[in-house]
């Protein structure tokens, strides 16, 4: 009876350790997304969703293959709005290593403007992509507005600081 009771406690302890580890992992992924108001003008408008590599197709379907082949471990995504109007999505792909992040970044095109962000970054009129260590971040706005490039850059710096 005593053995049985100890055994139950041991199981409970293991469950708690794993549950805490799981929560910690989720929290870490979510933490890279700046909360509303942290970056001037930006509001976080959705919960952060996290996709393991094996489930990435549920988010980006056919696009998932290139990330999986580059060694993606998980992808976190969240939506934002700037000054109540400009909508954007932030995707943070956590790769196995920096080489994986570099591989995806290299698929960019020549019309990108290089920017000082993380280890390497590029900016377009409506999007920013950069890498830092094993993280590859892509921020996309759904409209082209005059203030979009600067606003996106501010948000990108906010994410970069939390990586």
């Amino acid at each position: 009876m005593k053995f049985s009771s100890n055994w139950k406690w041991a199981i409970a302890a293991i469950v708690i350790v794993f549950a805490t580890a799981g929560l910690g992992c989720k929290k870490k992924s979510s933490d890279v997304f700046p909360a509303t108001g942290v970056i001037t003008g930006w509001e976080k408008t959705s919960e952060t969703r996290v996709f393991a590599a094996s489930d990435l197709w549920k988010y980006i379907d056919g696009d998932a293959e290139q990330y999986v082949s580059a060694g993606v471990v998980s992808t976190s995504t969240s939506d934002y709005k700037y000054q109540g109007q400009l909508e954007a999505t932030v995707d943070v792909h956590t790769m196995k290593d920096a080489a994986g992040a570099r591989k995806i970044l290299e698929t960019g095109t020549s019309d990108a403007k290089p920017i000082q962000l993380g280890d390497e970054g590029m900016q377009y009129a409506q999007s920013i992509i950069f890498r830092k260590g094993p993280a590859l971040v892509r921020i996309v706005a759904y409209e082209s507005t005059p203030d979009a490039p600067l606003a996106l850059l501010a948000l990108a710096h906010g994410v970069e600081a939390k990586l």
Partner: protein
Amino acid sequence: MNSRRDFLKNAATGAVLLGAQSKLGLAGKLDLHTEPGKSKVVIARDPALHGATAQLDEKRVLDLLDRAIAAYTGLEKPIDAWKRIVPVGKVIGLKTNGLGGKGISTHLALVLAVCERLQQAGVKPGEIVVWDRNARDLIACGLTINTDSSRVRCYGSDVSGFEDQPVSFGTANVKLSKILTRECAMVIGLPILKDHSSAGVTFAMKNMYGVVERPQDLHPGGCNPGVADLNCIPVIREKVRFTIGDALTSVYQGGPGFHPEHLWYPNALVVGEDRVAVDHTAWQMIERKRAEAGMPALEAAGRPPRYIATAADQIHRLGVNDPQHIHLLEI
């Protein structure tokens, strides 16, 4: 905009008796003017569709739809044309594509325009189901989830679920959405034209990846022969009868996700019954744009859409990909 939304909510529910129907209860061949052995594809364009702010002019979308359908059917009055397209008293599915997210999904204006014409042709609001993989994809199109059958319904396979028993053709062994198998008598595909990082191009046939439980299983080999095999599954082959392809906006590189740096406004609808011919035509549109932008052809980029030729081969016989057998009408 408001009036069209109101129309969806308030449209009369009385069905109008339509013309003669086939044995399946589906409309017959829509294009009566193209010579036998040829497939007709219409590309209807309106360069003024997007205003200065890149916003779609919804009235012009409806007009463009009317022109496309009139050119395809040879019937000048939209209602007459739609009465030929849709069957009596059956549920019509509109399969959208919202996978790419908000920036590159089937346009709401097109969905609303099709719903409006369907109802004017006598389809009850509750007999229209706008559907896709899940709520997220539908919301990406600007749609609102609704399962109330007194109005146009709109929900994903995440609500309906999938059949327990898989069905097969070639490499495709899939569980189909119950919306396709149990709800719809006929499906009109409303795909959006995009470059695709592995398949090359995604449009009419590739849109069917959104009707199965695990589309990722069909991606190997640049989706070849996955796309062709999937479209040969009898329920897809029989029910997906018409395509009104959304080429109002497109991405010519970086798809199927939203890559605004490669966004492009073809301002066009691509319409046809033969999904192979529609896809071949759409592929050429993407190639022309890539050449114009100084990008390599999809073959050189290592991802030609080989599934189109496979779909036309002797095993699949889904349609024609030979330009000699495509009656392309550009208006």
